[in-house]
């Protein structure tokens, strides 16, 4: 349903309101910018792409590791797989957490 446009509206604001009615994509963009005002200037640009290329990166910090080890002395070691959304440094991959490096050539279990 079309909104009633007041006569006194400046031209740019009127065009913007028209856009929201005829262009749902622009309306969604306005919604997003309202929620995240600091969203990057280049959408889908370098930052986003570089994050995609870095998928799987897990860093190790020996200082954090030793501090966490000291904290963990009184707690049980985690048995579940590391939560991927945890900030590096807060979760320390211990040697027990890391998956074993298996040999590349896997003999078929079905082979006689």
């Amino acid at each position, binding site marked *: 349903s079309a909104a009633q446009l007041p006569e006194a509206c400046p031209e740019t604001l009127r065009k913007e309101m028209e856009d929201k009615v005829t262009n749902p994509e622009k309306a969604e*963009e306005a919604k*997003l910018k309202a929620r995240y005002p600091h969203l990057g200037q280049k959408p889908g640009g370098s930052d986003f*792409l570089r994050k995609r290329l870095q998928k*799987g990166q897990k860093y190790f910090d020996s200082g954090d590791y030793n501090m966490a080890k000291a904290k963990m002395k009184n707690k049980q070691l985690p048995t579940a797989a590391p939560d991927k959304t945890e900030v590096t440094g807060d979760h320390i991959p211990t040697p027990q957490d890391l998956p074993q*490096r298996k040999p*590349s050539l896997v003999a078929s*279990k079905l082979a*006689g």
Partner: protein
Amino acid sequence: ADIISTVEFNYSGDLLATGDKGGRVVIFQREQESKSRPHSRGEYNVYSTFQSHEPEFDYLKSLEIEEKINKIRWLPQQNAAHFLLSTNDKTIKLWKISERDKRAEGYNLKDEDGRLRDPFRITALRVPILKPMDLMVEASPRRIFANAHTYHINSISVNSDHETYLSADDLRINLWHLEITDRSFNIVDIKPANMEELTEVITAAGFHPHQCNVFVYSSSKGTIRLCDMRSSALCDRHSKFFEEPEDPSSRSFFSEIISSISDVNFSHSGRYMMTRDYLSVKVWDLNMENRPVETYQVHEYLRSKLCSLYENDCIFDKFECCWNGSDSAIMTGSYNNFFRMFDRNTRRDITLEASRENSKPRAVLKPRKVCTGGKRKKDEISVDSLDFNKKILHTAWHPVENVIAVAATNNLYIFQDKIN
């Protein structure tokens, strides 16, 4: 059961391979027609299961390598055994799947249970005989193609010469020979000298079905480049560049993201190719670069939901698309376990659902409809009720018949034309 990450029929359609997030490959085989079991005509049953890839950790780069199978591609059959290529983010493997239905009995040096016989007690020689045994299907890795990709592999494609294949990651495409694992040729490299200047990545690639020198690759900016390997060793310069012109006034924050192509597929004829972006499927004539010849809206109602879809990351979902055997129809997936089929000749389309709750086995599927506004009719589902966790990303169509395979998260559905 794990989340299915790829589905692929072989050249005859008798075998259907699925790969999953846990690195396993499961192959189904079509039952032969038989009078004693008329209802199992054309049913697919498990033929072979094996662990293709394991999780790895690259200590040098501090990189976790998922075992998830990104793609499976069959090789054309040349003898009794079947061969397929399966790949995760970093390593491609060639697997041989063979049948064994005979076993040798009557060895001289060992007993039937495998224990070695005392050679001094052997007084006579016998010739071992081949005896029939229960069918055993074995999968063995014949080639490992490793260490050629710095970035994550998104596509593999077997060449029509049946000797070479390509593998593509975010920034590079490599050409391999199926027999040679210690070398591959880089044929496309779009990595900029300064990574700050990175503006697009490779999203999919594939060889032409008949012209062994031609391949295409799609990008995150919605473009497709066709390259000819005869023109130069490094195909950084394309022979053809396909892009649909965009209306600059309608450009938004989401424009580039939703234009990113998630899949590209040549038609069987080799005359057309199909691309899938977030909201539509486009058919391109290879002879026309400036716009697609056909555009099909998959779920246009999502255009007014892009903000939420960006927040829950669904806007980055990578849907695949496929042709039927005669190139007269195309299929692609959507949300809520819906998948869509478009008939290119009649321009009719249909939305169906892959779900056990809403259809019984062997029952005819009821078409679904999403209500986009106004009053919701009975049997329609409103956009806000769609389950965005139930996504159908992977579908496959039998190369000849009207049989389709649809992967709905961790379930595989196989649908056939009604048998009269």
